[in-house]
């Protein structure tokens, strides 16, 4: 009998080699206790969290928690059903209303995760004769949405305007076109030139979908994302987002002004054939989204944190993913997986958690230490973080 698992042997081998050196497994961390959006207990030790997507620190917001508890009491622990059958409660409608208000758009559709939102919308709207033109560095959920559907998939070099335009112009006349972009690319924390890209897409008759998962809540005057910040949100046909980052719970969504948008509720399989979010989750999400509309002070502090960490790490001599801070993600580029894992462990021993990111998640085979800031990191914590990077960087020889 051929072992179906033998195809995983190379990665099993790589993992064993890495762990044989005595390193802590970077992909198996357990948080024993979570004290706040910025602090958890890991291996019995107080650890500053610099690798979550809790950008706006909403997970322990008292109003959010209260809304969740109330919904548990009033509606129970789960819906046990699809949105189109018995899985739409008042709370699901309420969170969709909150999204429509947040984005000032006509329609909002909530999925059980952000992954499913991309999977569902992309695979459903682009059919067999259509073309999807996407950035090569797109998130796995976008690629999986492409794979689930039947459209022709055409990638172009990351953030390359000419490459996008050339490909759009070569698509056969009359074919449907969907350009898929992200506001913030989550591995390096860089943003897309959406203004120019959306203009190119529109000039070539394409619809545009932008994933704003890593920008919601703090980029743009109203926190609507990079498309808002660059002044072209009205030209974007579909915005995909998530509740598992700034909103602070789990779930995904698509907002749109397309007049026929609501039909997706009947034809989108990843929406129909799965259970809807629990009442407590949609209640916390709705409360959080409405609070995010009025969070200018927190946004300003998050940006201050991002600028300070970026400047500090640069000064220490680390190589960063962007020349300037463009989002709440600051990526430190490591020379290889071994050094990255050693540095990750040294930081953990200092009391700091960051994400170790490696291929296939990262572009160009890079190993990254990904730092994501929170609006609730205090100025003192950012200072502590820089101290920890100094100590760990010197201990591992990453900086002198």
């Amino acid at each position: 009998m051929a072992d179906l698992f033998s195809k995983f042997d190379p990665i099993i081998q790589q993992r064993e080699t890495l762990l044989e050196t005595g390193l802590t497994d970077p992909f198996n961390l357990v948080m024993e206790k979570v004290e706040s959006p910025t602090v958890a207990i890991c291996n019995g030790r107080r650890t500053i969290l610099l690798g979550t997507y809790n950008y706006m620190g909403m997970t322990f917001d008292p109003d959010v928690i209260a809304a969740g508890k109330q919904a548990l009491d009033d509606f129970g622990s789960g819906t046990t059903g699809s949105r189109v059958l018995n899985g739409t409660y008042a709370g699901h409608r309420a969170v969709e209303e909150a999204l429509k208000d947040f984005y000032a758009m006509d329609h909002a559709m909530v999925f059980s995760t952000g992954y499913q939102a991309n999977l569902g919308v992309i695979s459903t709207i682009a059919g067999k004769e259509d073309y999807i033109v996407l950035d090569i560095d797109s998130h796995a959920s976008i690629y999986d949405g492409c794979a689930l559907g039947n459209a022709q998939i055409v990638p172009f070099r990351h953030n390359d305007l000419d490459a996008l335009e050339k490909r759009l112009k070569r698509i056969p006349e009359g074919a449907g076109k969907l350009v898929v972009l992200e506001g913030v690319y989550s591995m390096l924390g860089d943003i897309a030139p959406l203004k120019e890209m959306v203009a190119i897409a529109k000039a070539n008759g394409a619809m545009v979908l932008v994933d704003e998962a890593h920008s919601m809540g703090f980029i743009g005057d109203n926190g609507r994302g990079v498309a808002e910040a660059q002044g072209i949100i009205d030209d974007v046909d579909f915005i995909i987002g998530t509740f598992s980052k700034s909103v602070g719970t789990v779930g995904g969504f698509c907002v749109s002004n397309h007049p026929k948008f609501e039909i997706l509720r009947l034809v989108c399989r990843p929406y129909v054939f799965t259970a809807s979010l629990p009442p407590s989750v949609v209640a916390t999400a709705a409360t959080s989204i409405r609070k995010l509309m009025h969070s200018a002070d927190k946004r300003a502090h998050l940006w201050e944190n991002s600028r300070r960490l970026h400047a500090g790490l640069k000064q220490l001599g680390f190589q960063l993913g962007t020349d300037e801070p463009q989002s709440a993600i600051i990526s430190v580029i490591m020379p290889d997986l071994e050094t990255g894992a050693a540095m990750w462990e040294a930081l953990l021993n200092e009391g700091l958690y960051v994400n170790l990111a490696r291929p296939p998640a990262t572009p160009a085979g890079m190993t990254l230490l990904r730092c994501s800031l929170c609006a609730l990191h205090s100025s003192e914590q950012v200072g502590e973080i820089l101290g920890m990077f100094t100590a760990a960087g010197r201990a591992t020889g990453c900086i002198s």
Partner: protein
Amino acid sequence: MSDRQQTYAKVLGLIEPFNKKGVAITEGTRFAQDLEWDSLTVLDFVANVEDEFDVLISMNMQAEIETVGQLVDALERLAAARGS
């Protein structure tokens, strides 16, 4: 030279700058296994092929193309489709 031979010659020229290991290229040479190209190299190479022949080679098509000869065949088909 036939059209196909011309296409093959052009493809060889486009492979050259990415053939870092100096592999001797035949129609049977496989891009992934023999040339050991990673996804970014493939993206750059495909972009060059697309520009040279003014065609679009979708990922769906790329999935069916393993060897140099198969790429030449695909380009011939694209040219024929456009001519018809």
